[in-house]
């Protein structure tokens, strides 16, 4: 199994990850090698087996809906790369 350049670019676009030419080249080889190693799972019969998302058997964990103080907006905005007043500032989404 060999990932093509187009497949690598498609994946990168899905997660909005910029890649250099060198990275595109390297990842198509490395990811292909890793994926080849996953072929081993085809040997396992998993008919009727439920998928396991996590290992602890807890479902629908509820708590009382008590109001408690939240974070100070200044603390949350402290790490904002760009802000305006009490808001995160972002670039135009729709042009």
């Amino acid at each position, binding site marked *: 199994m060999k*990932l093509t350049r187009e497949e*690598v670019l498609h*994946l*990168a676009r*899905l*997660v*909005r*990850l*910029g*890649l*250099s030419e060198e*990275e595109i080249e390297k*990842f198509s080889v*490395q*990811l292909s*090698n*890793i*994926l080849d*190693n*996953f072929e*081993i*799972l085809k040997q*396992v019969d*998993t008919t009727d*087996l*439920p*998928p*396991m*998302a*996590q*290992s*602890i058997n*807890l479902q629908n*964990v509820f*708590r009382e809906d008590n109001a408690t103080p939240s*974070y100070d907006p200044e*603390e*949350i905005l*402290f*790490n*904002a*790369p*760009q802000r305006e007043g009490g808001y*995160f500032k*972002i*670039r*135009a*989404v729709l042009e």
Partner: protein
Amino acid sequence: MVMNGLHQLTISQASRLLRQRSLSSVELTEACLRRIEQVEDKIHACVTICRDSALEQAKEADRAISNGEDDPLAGIPVLIKDNISTKGVRTTCSSKMLENFIPPYDATVVARLKSRKAVILGKTNMDEFAMGSSTENSAFFPTKNPWDLERVPGGSSGGSAAAIATDEAIYALGSDTGGSIRQPAGFCNVVGLKPTYGRVSRFGLVAFASSLDQIGPITKDVTDCATVLNAIAGNDPKDSTTAPYPVPDYTRTLIPDLKKMRLGIPKEYFVEGMQPEVKAALGAAIKTLEELGAEIDINASLPHTRYALAVYYIIAPSEASANLARYDGVKYGYSYQQTENMWEAMEKTKQIGFGPEVKRRIMLGTYALSAGYYDAYYLKAQKVRTLIRNEFEQVFQKYDALVTPTSPTVPFKLGERIDDPLQMYLSDVCTLPINIAGLPAISIPAGFTNGLPIGMQIIGKPFDEETILRIAFAYEQATQWHKSKPQI
């Protein structure tokens, strides 16, 4: 007690001296800070040192102790892995992405240590976002193995393990997604415990693979490990995956007697490519366990172990690709500013902010989750995960615990595996099945070959940390490997 310096104390030794008032927390903290200054040039275990706030906390601890505070962690200096949030102290995950990130809150484990008057010395180096097995994936610098500076300390909690091996702090916290506490503990001759999934709160731990991550102690001996677990374990309303079960006093289980203890040695963990010296050390360790009264069965078998590596490297990157989507340069972290185009800004932010292994895993996870491949990779891996978990459940009807090597080899050389991701992944082959099944496991010192440490892993039933701590304690008392220290 022969001591060259206060930094060499364990938690139990230091805590006794503090409560007798023959030692102050300020003296102990200053001793650790001096030790850090003395060895950091060679080891590079720390990303941030909090000298002033540590000394402030030490003074406060001394006041509390003189007012009757008798918690065993009061006044004891600790180092925290840099993916565990510390309010007001930068938390970088050893990534350019979070190089200047200052969390607005403490992780629950940090809050619990602070409420016990712990002294936080600083933050330790790691593989970027905890992805790696050598700490070479740190965006800042690699950490060195104190037993041989040309070798890796293991990873991803390599900074925490190397720091404890060199007595830069009295204990440390790490995190473990596929072996990231145990493998470096084994490589550095210290004790490292990954608790059962759900035993310790993950609130404030920067997410890598949310169904596998756990925080745990890295300590100088097994008693300290139990003491730290006492402090950090338990239900947390801020993490709904923490179990509502009561927390026992883990120090009470520590008795040096293994009579009637049934131990299985799963043959699949003695893998192809395992170094003969590691196998020999484990053979000797198992003999010691038998002499301590344990019933050993060397024919235990977990045949689906051979699929664990593939399952792990589908599930962990899949979860990572979803978790790391938040680093878009908008809310916090590195942000590319030299464009007005939103998509370009996002792509460049990740391209510049993330290192090669993080990008590789994001790509891998995205592939496994993408349309057309989801069933063949992600769903298939989740089903095999069920098989692996079921197999452990069956085996644990026959045994109280399982014993394996922590890693198939001794610490490898810096640079040796960094360009070969598959070789790097193989160093976690003995530890990652445990995260897949959500079990507790501890790595303890089990001998040396050519001056390099070998770790033994003890795996327990879900929420039965008591049994593995007891086995570890009995072995430690009988062997004393943990008392060997690197010459630095």
